[in-house]
């Protein structure tokens, strides 16, 4: 951890902001950095700028796929979509207009490093800009366009589900029963959610505007499940002594 000195104030190093964002800091260091961000407006603003810049870059990269993967994803979405979901004139989220959106959004984000009015505009208008170009994101009531299933291997008797960001809508269902297999299902609102399997748990790199639901089925050998959103623990479930199936719901929009 480096707190660089500028005149009479120590500020958090840019690299440490990235480490903090990625959950790479040891707990003690994380506490020190978060305490500092709570108190220091300059560092908090810098942290938010990096967060937005990183999100813009991830969004742009999300849209760059190998042609075979793009074709496969489209076919999969078509197969999964209810009849009429891809009516004439309806573009999938990863359609090429959104590439221009990514460039525009990223360009707008670029201005955040230089001008205060632009920073304010971006803070207020991120969703508006995105919606303006690609249309409103699907709501929870709309049919899901794609699902994916990933397997993971929990370590030990505790499991962490770590959401990197808060999001505007969505719910997490955690199910533990006697027949559970270790798997997770993502029902993507806009196809940009990404599950990353870590040794210590499952990390979901969700977006703030995504409206996704997550269904997890966990082995009964677990003793505790922790749900963390943007670095804060929002729920802890104990499965110790459990004799029958249990299900927990977490409202992701209100952590």
């Amino acid at each position, binding site marked *: 951890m480096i707190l660089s000195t500028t005149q009479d104030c120590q500020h958090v*190093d*840019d*690299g*440490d*902001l*990235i*480490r903090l964002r*990625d959950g*790479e800091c040891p707990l003690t260091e994380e506490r020190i950095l978060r305490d500092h961000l709570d108190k220091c407006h300059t560092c908090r603003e810098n942290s938010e700028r*990096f967060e937005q*810049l*990183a999100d813009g*870059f*991830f969004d*742009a*990269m999300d*849209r*760059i*796929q*190998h*042609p*075979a*993967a*793009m*074709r496969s994803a*489209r076919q999969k979405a078509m197969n999964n979509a209810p009849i009429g979901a891809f009516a004439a004139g309806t573009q999938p989220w*990863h*359609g*090429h207009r959104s*590439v*221009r959106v*990514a*460039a525009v959004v*990223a*360009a707008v*984000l*670029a*201005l955040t*490093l*230089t001008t205060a009015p632009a920073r304010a505009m971006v803070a207020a208008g991120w969703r508006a800009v995105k919606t303006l170009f690609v249309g409103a994101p699907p709501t929870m009531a709309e049919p899901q366009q794609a699902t994916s299933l990933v397997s993971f291997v929990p370590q030990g008797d505790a499991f962490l589900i770590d959401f990197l960001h808060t999001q505007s809508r969505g719910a997490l269902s955690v199910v533990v029963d006697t027949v559970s297999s270790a798997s997770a299902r993502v029902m993507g609102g806009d196809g940009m959610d*990404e599950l*990353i399997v*870590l040794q210590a748990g499952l*990390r979901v*790199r969700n977006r703030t505007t995504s409206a996704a639901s997550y269904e997890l089925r966990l082995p009964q050998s677990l003793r505790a499940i922790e749900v963390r959103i943007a670095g804060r623990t929002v729920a802890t479930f104990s499965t110790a002594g459990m004799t029958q199936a249990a299900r927990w719901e977490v409202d992701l929009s209100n952590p």
Partner: protein
Amino acid sequence: MNADELFCKHQPALLRYLTRYTGDPEIAADATQHAYLKLVESPPRDHANLRAWLFTVATNVVHDGWKHDGRTQRLLQSAESILEPQGPPDPQTSAEHADQLELASKLLTRVSDKERTILLMWVEGFAHKEIADAVGTTTGTIGPTIARALKKISKQIDQYMREDV
């Protein structure tokens, strides 16, 4: 799990990473096949970090180029039958992809090869230590490198926007 199954598990992410890295789907597919051959011929001792190992091998393939002797050609043809068939892209995919690759090349113009590797492995969800091991640096330098590269990209986009205006 045998080598084919192990590789197929990681192939989509590897193709995606290499497409972003090189900006060329064909080079990405070739480098992916070379990584597969490397896995078959000289697999790592420990499969725990196989994903990082494959990304490192494939990145080195792109950097170093590769020689196609007769034996390699035969092996590559054999690999093609095992890996996911690519087939010709449909017209919509081609149009989308041209735009996307243009965006990739623009976004990543100003960063070095090492920064590009770090950024794109970061996007793939690798831990900082895994990225550091892959590029031969210390874990502590990954965060600052990502921050510096993001700033470069930000400036690059700013420049393109000014040029367009």
